[in-house]
């Protein structure tokens, strides 16, 4: 538990209405989107500005209290899981868009600003903020920065780091520093480059300068039905090999289609592998490329091809895709969401292997993935009520991550390592690689108080524990979709 003196100092930092210490209220903060890990924090503080964050972190530094910063808590790898008895810094009150500079194409926001609000703010001028995690209607920019969030459209537009020009950061010592600049190539090390995606382990971002992008002239979305996800996967490779860079290339397999249909009625064709291709850009280019994409789909045996004819139709196509995770509840009592990456060309091979591994243990795996960049989201379906099945499912999801690494890929494309995949990071990187990362960690946070015991493997643990999926309260309430 926190020493009373520290609690008094935290109260002085944020005022009585910014401090939560009551047991039942603390429970709201005991987990993020990875709901099977729950830890009760010692206190939650809700700062209103950077000075208050500085004051909070200084208290933590003085007393060597671990702190974890948190936005909307939609993360899927346990990145915002509190340290036991530590401090959670809830940044939801810091939700102002501070500056909009259309001519220079950037905005300056506080960390608690919701992702989609950035686009809403600049939409009238014809701009948008590109990274679009499917929790974008609730997740915050601060969380996106911590996780280097992606989304369906990062194939063309890049990740959060691509769009982060500068950061104001409270270091774990309590110092306030500016990293980067709204202009390119500020002299010195690329500290925004290393801070974005550091999962809250290097400090707390209190101000973020984001790049915004001009909305493309036209967007076209096609759906193509194939007999198998492998055939859809081959089509993806052929589209890329033809020199196209679609804004999104998504695949869903039969199970995922079934679940999404049940949940959203997106009118998807019933098939073994559904491919979604979205092209955007100048209208003349998009029309020509769409013709080429259609031809490639036909050459790969597409049984049915449909081009969304209206914005409403496109929105429905995407709604089905973005609801796919949550929709699993319709076809399975429990499921585990995974997030592996493989080289695109390994798709057919890896998909077959995943099915083989699943059959061998009599489980079903649904596949939803960002095929363009090889980012798989295997959903391992199981029933907790059947004795022993959860362990088998966990083991399978863990082995799928190893399969991704064995095929030259990664254990996470967008969900982060967090609490969930610490051991898997040790499978992907060697000890010298991890020690080198620790040098950065130690330079920023020598006392190891900023989101400690995350990301890096703990030698005392022998196995990873990817979580069985239980809905986040926000999701159950219908406020958020988990992607």
């Amino acid at each position, binding site marked *: 538990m926190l020493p009373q003196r520290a609690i008094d100092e935290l109260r002085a930092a944020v005022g009585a209405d910014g401090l939560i210490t009551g047991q039942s209220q603390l429970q709201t903060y005991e987990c993020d989107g990875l709901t099977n890990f729950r830890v009760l924090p010692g206190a939650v503080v809700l700062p209103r500005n950077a000075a208050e964050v500085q004051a909070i972190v200084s208290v933590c530094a003085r007393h060597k209290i671990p702190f974890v910063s948190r936005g909307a808590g939609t993360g899927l790898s346990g990145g915002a899981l509190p340290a036991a008895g530590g401090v959670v810094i809830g940044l939801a009150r810091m939700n102002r868009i501070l500056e909009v500079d259309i001519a220079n194409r950037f905005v300056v926001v506080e960390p608690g600003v919701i992702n989609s609000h950035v686009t809403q703010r600049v939409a009238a001028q014809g701009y948008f903020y590109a990274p679009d995690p499917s929790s974008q209607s609730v997740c915050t920019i601060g969380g996106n920065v911590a996780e280097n969030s992606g989304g369906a459209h990062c194939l063309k537009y890049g990740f959060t780091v691509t769009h982060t020009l500068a950061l104001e950061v409270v270091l774990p010592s309590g110092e306030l520093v500016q990293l980067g600049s709204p202009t390119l190539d*500020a002299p010195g090390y690329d500290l925004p480059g*290393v801070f974005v995606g550091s999962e809250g382990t290097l400090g707390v971002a209190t101000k973020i300068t984001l790049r915004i992008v001009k909305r493309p002239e036209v967007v076209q979305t096609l759906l193509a039905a194939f007999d198998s996800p492998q055939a859809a996967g081959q089509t993806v490779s052929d589209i890329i090999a033809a020199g196209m860079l679609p804004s999104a290339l998504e695949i869903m397999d039969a199970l995922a289609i079934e679940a999404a249909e049940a949940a959203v009625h997106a009118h998807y064709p019933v098939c073994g592998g559904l491919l979604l291709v979205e092209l955007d850009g100048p209208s003349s280019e998009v029309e020509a490329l769409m013709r080429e994409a259609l031809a490639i789909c036909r050459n790969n045996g597409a049984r049915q091809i449909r081009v969304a004819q209206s914005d409403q139709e496109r929105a429905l196509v995407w709604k089905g895709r973005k609801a796919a995770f949550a929709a699993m509840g319709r076809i399975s009592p429990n499921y585990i969401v995974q997030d592996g990456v493989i080289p695109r060309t390994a798709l057919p091979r890896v998909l077959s292997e995943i099915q083989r591994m699943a059959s061998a243990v009599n489980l079903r795996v649904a596949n939803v993935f960002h095929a363009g960049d090889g980012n798989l989201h295997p959903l391992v379906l199981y029933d907790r009520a059947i004795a022993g099945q959860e362990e088998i499912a966990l083991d399978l999801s863990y082995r799928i991550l190893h399969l991704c690494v064995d095929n030259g890929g990664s254990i996470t494309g967008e969900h982060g390592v967090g609490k969930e995949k610490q051991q898997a990071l040790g499978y992907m990187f060697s000890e010298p690689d991890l020690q080198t990362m620790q040098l*950065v960690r130690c330079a920023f946070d020598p006392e190891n108080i900023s989101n400690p015991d995350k990301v890096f493997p703990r030698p005392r643990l022998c196995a990873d524990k990817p979580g069985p999926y239980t809905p986040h309260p926000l999701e159950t309430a219908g406020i958020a979709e988990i992607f």
Partner: protein
Amino acid sequence: MTAATAITQQDCLARLASIAGRENAHFADDAIAVAAADAHQVAEILRFANSNSIAVTPSGSGTKLGWGNPVAPGIRLDLKRMNTLREHPWQDMTCTVEAGCTWAAMQTELARHGQMVALDPLWPARATVGGVVATNDSGALRLKYGGLRDLIIGMTAVLADGTIAKTGGKVVKNVAGYDLHKLMTGSFGTLGVVTEVNFRLHPVEVHARTWTAVAPDPTPLAAPLRALLDSQMTPSAVQLRARKQECALDIRIAALPACMDIHAANLRNIFGQIELNESSEAAWQAREELFETKGRLVLKVSLLPVDVCPVSLELQQWAAREKIEIDLVSQATGLMTVALSGSLEKAIALIEHLRARLRGSGGSVIALRIPEPLRAGLEPWGCDSNALPLMREIKRRFDPNRILNPGRFVGNI
């Protein structure tokens, strides 16, 4: 030679020769040059240098060795033997290349499958991948494709203590662990020696055309430039060139041949009364040409996109007033290269003026090429970041004995 211990030059040479082979180690100027064959040799060389506190400067072709503060190394670590494109899984549109490979050699190999690393650095025929990465160089294509931080997906680097560390991977989307490759990029060899780089690739721009508008000064070009960048057109590159009484705006568009006329019409629409003429690819050599005249000071100025035209005009006017020559090439992204000749006093006055002018908007001025007579009076970096202590701490953790390019980087890191 900065050897703290009593090791002699001869002993040092003998040790390096035993690591890299006798034919790959020799005395060169004040240092010993050693050419490593692979990351393991680099590691052995660095371990040796580290335990004897000998300063090391990694180098490729040496095209940018003069950038930053001067270093007097005991060992010049040559990476040119490590010059192969190790992997090019073209269907995955990624590649792995050794640091000593020249940019052009890499691109030639990649072009066999119609692909490229979408970056146009200086002197591609000589500049090596490692040098381009260490200095974070970029050209006009940055507008469309981003800089090295957006194109590098993984890296192998050797630390001062000989640790061989990998970061990132070979897939484009990957958030596992810290992105050390972003930290290494642009670190001027002060944190480690990059031995191998993984890039994401793009299709070669097969059909591209360049148009140019000219004016005596940048003022009339400011509005169309702004309109172009605010439009839904997607040019690959846009640059402003300015010199005495002469100014040009170049626009490069890559597109399907069938669509090119539509783009041309859209472009003419944006430029209205200002004449646009098709020009040759040679226009894109302009940045490199700024370095050609010997004895000129060359600056890298970073400013906000809207400041490109006004600052260019101010520089033109300043040159006319001070009776010196200024040539500049500015990318639409706000990265400007400025070449000037003149006295030390005038150069310092200009740099100080520019730094003050740009401070409010976060801009910066780095002196890249400094003629010898100006060297003593000029601080090249002008870094006043409050993150400098943090940068120093990172350096201390990575290279506690300060053997890697000591003093070369910002704040004498």
